[in-house]
């Protein structure tokens, strides 16, 4: 997979909750390309719509209007079965709270999406993934016998095992100490560099975001900025600027 092409494309995406006066526009016309082979972060303050955007991209949620395309698949036209298959075959997930199946061993967890699909793992790829996540000696353990960092690495391996087109990571370091968090981020980074994996990570942590290639900033359901080759300092600067801008925007509105 070479970088540059779009692994996913979002066009005019709108997502509203509630109706009438109670209507909340979580996404308010987002247009965005997720470039293949690129580690993309989606950042923004709470309520900016970043999680909603990810859920819509990952076929977990259906938008109110607009279009999501994964590869050349238009999601809007797909039913539950097709969406399930798409998630199974094209998408990998990493959650903040690991979400491993407690009854299965680490290895069984990693292979679960494949075995649900009744597919055999690509042995070379699988070995590469296991090497990358460095948990070979823990494969026979159950999740409750693993540390948080180990569990999250298992979760990353699970997301990668089926060679998905895109891996979505939702605050993957949110429940980890900084040391384990750094390990997981390094792992994600390496999979982009070494395997050309496309990863989209939602985060509000500038340190985590600094590991990525590109950051898309969201505010009030819109794309409000973008940054390439980010560093922690630039991210902080940008966020401060956005906050100021937002404060200025909000100031004249009496209702606040």
């Amino acid at each position: 997979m070479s970088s540059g092409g779009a692994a996913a494309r979002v066009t005019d995406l709108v997502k509203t909750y509630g109706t009438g006066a109670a209507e909340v526009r979580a996404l308010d016309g987002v247009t965005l390309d997720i470039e293949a082979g690129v580690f993309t972060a989606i950042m923004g303050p709470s309520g900016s719509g970043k999680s909603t955007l990810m859920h819509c991209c990952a076929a977990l949620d259906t938008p109110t209007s607009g279009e999501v395309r994964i590869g050349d698949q238009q999601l809007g036209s797909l039913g539950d079965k097709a969406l399930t298959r798409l998630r199974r075959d094209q998408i990998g997930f990493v959650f903040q709270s690991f979400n491993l199946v407690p009854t299965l061993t680490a290895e069984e967890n990693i292979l679960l999406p494949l075995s649900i699909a009744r597919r055999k793992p690509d042995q070379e790829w699988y070995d590469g993934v296991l090497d990358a996540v460095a948990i070979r000696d823990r494969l026979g353990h159950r999740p409750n016998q693993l540390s948080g960092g180990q569990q999250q690495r298992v979760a990353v391996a699970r997301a990668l095992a089926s060679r998905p087109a895109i891996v979505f990571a939702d605050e993957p370091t949110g429940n980890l100490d900084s040391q384990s968090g750094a390990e997981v981020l390094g792992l994600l980074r390496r999979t982009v560099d070494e395997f050309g994996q496309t990863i989209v990570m939602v985060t509000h942590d500038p340190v985590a975001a600094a590991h990525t290639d590109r950051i898309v900033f969201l505010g009030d359901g819109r794309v409000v900025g973008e940054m390439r080759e980010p560093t922690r300092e630039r991210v902080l600067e940008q966020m401060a600027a956005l906050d100021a801008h937002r404060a200025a925007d909000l100031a004249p509105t009496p209702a606040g």
Partner: protein
Amino acid sequence: MLHAAWRSLLGRKVRLVMSTFAIVLGVAFVVGTLIFTDTLNRSFVAIFDNSVGDVVVQPTRVTSNVDVATTVQLRGSLVDDIAQLDGVRRADGKVVAAGVFVVGKNNKVIGGQGPPGFAFNDNDAPAAHGIRPLQVVDGRQPHGPDEVAMDVKTAVRAGYVLGDKVRIVSATKRALLTPTLVGLADFPDGGTLNGATATIWDTRTAQRLFLEGRDGFNTIWVTADDGVSQQELRDKVASVLPADARAMTGDKAADVAASRLLEAIRFITIFLLVFAGIALVVGSFLIINTFSILVAQRSRELALLRALGASRRQVSRSVLFEAFVVGAVGSTIGVGLGVLLAVAIRYVFGRFGLDLSGTAFVFAPRTFLAAYAIGIVVTLVAAYLPARRSARIAPVAALRDDVAMPESSMRLRFAVGMLMCLAAAAMMVVGLTLDVPKKGYWVGGGILAALLGVAVASPVLAKPFLLLAAAGYRAVFGSVGRLAGQNSLRNPRRTAATASALMIGMALVATMSIAGASAKASVDDSIAKNFVGDLVISNLIGQGFSPSVGDRAERAPGVESVVRTRFAQASVGGRREFLGGVDPAHFGAVMRLRTTGGGLADVDDGACLMNEDYAKEHGYDRGDLVAWQMPKGNQALRVVGTYEGNGAVFATCVTNLATFSAAGFQAQDNAAFVTVKPGVDVTFVEAAINEQIAALPTVTVKNQREYAAEQREPIDRLVLMIYALLGMAIVIALLGVVNTLALSVIERTREIGLLRAIGLSRAQLRRMIGLESIVIAVLGALLGVAMGVIFGVALMSSLRDEGLTVTRIPTVSLTAFVLSAAIVGVVTAVLPARRAARLDVLTAIATE
């Protein structure tokens, strides 16, 4: 603290619905049973109150006014002697005969085989306390041999109206009567026959038909003048009675007459309550399980309460408070459902001929007290263990991520369970083999202890099965199978407890199926071994029939001989025993009787063969005398030998027909065995006899095979009835499976969300939960069938002396039970699986 418990209850009401339902069903069973049997009781008490005068006079030897199949009566002139006494307003002679049945227009006996058919003479004597008893209220009184009246309900059921020629079958000399219906009778002051039938004849006709023409009466009702009490009247009447008659106050006579039936009703009550108890035991499993799961799910919240300063007692009490509310709500609904159930039970008994529609339901206060006491106590007891465990949650658990519930050690559980099984085995051995009082309690207690012991040990016992199932699932269903198998193993306590509830019902069903199959096989065996005649004329319940039936059979072409047997009840040593009467010269030709000591040939007048078991139990030997209290007086029969009882001949003593008749029993046959002339086709003779007795639907003629089938039928019916009663326990257990699955779906919401997110389809998810359900159901069925086989074999081996010689294990039925459990497993999974499949992936993942 209670407030918090209350809130948590409201927040979880859906999850408590199933355990409430378990209580509802158990309580409803109790309430339904009590209402029904109270009503039954009242209706029969009312019947017997209607069946006595202020004072009744009876032959001394006749124990009650329904015991009328004797040739002992009061002389007719006694009525006039009594009527002339001071303080007597009137005295009326009553003729009462049983075994007189109305045949409907469709040639069916009204009431079928069950409720008695009475015949009375017509008179308007008031019953005790001035109540007007059954009397002609429509049309006119019957006069002469060709007129009859009958009770309204019977006429309606038979399809007869006034003026119709009706068909009546009598067990006395004239088997078939065809008088004209001229009157309809009813109870002007309210009353009911509970499905029995009554025909009314003028006194002379009644005497001619039922008392062989003697001028006598079965009983005399004496009505008191105003101001004369029953007791005073009785004393007056008693002073003029001959030695062979006695007087009783009406109240006492009603009690005496009712006592035997009330005993039978008590038996029905206990019988039904046993099943209610089983349902409640199974229900308590469901409650234990539900509360355990709820406490586990809430452990963090409970730990938080502890961290905030709640004491252990407060925590466990809040759980018990929830249980109390569940019990109270369940009892309330159960009472309502119980009333409906009483209606249903009344309907079922109505189908067997017991018509209670004439009596209003009896709602005794103790029914409702019992309902609430049982409902609440059972819930509290069942919730006690989870409540105690909840108190052991450490406050620090509130701060931890994954809270492990404190659990008792598996090894301890296994040991306790096995100890209970040992105790159970000991109790069953005592109850089944030793001569102890209240055997039923020993056996029942043993069965209960064994079931509970296995339930306690089941997490360990079930482990091999669960591992096997998990391996099988993995091999057949791939990753979905592996997930399902692992889920069953995740909490073996829960899986096993849920399965145990099902085990209880299944064990009893399996026991019953073995008992039923064995009993039927024993009947077949006994008939094949002992019945050497060609045909038998009889009816299912051994109801006596007219000797003219045998006479008709004798006239049928191809018949070589007809051998009649009779039996009746009389007292020996204060207990009612059966006395049989046979023709010793010919009986051996139709029935093989194994005798020791003397044989049939030795049975002459005053001699008898005694049932082996009875002789052994009561220490009789050849040559001993047995003192029988016969209708005509005490008579000592000489024991000339013993015989091995079988399904067709089981009386305590068997004597010859002359001795039997001389004792004062009416000439009624209970079975007539037919031998066919050599070379004549049995089928042909059967058809010929059938033609002779076609007008008498109270009896049928059948060959060996048909006879066996007829004898098997009531066993089938009883087994089916018990299946139906156990069905309640099984339904509750299945609700338990639904409940456990539903609660574990709730518990695993996040996990299910994750599985869906990474690509598990809805169908796969449903399959996974279905497979989990099948594991539980099949485990329960397997444990149950295994226990049932043990119980069944133990039971049958102890009944070998009672004539149930064959033990048969119906492998086909037992296999079918297990297979249907798998199917039921699929069904119980439907709702929980649908709920799981409907979970929104996003919210599920976000669930804490």
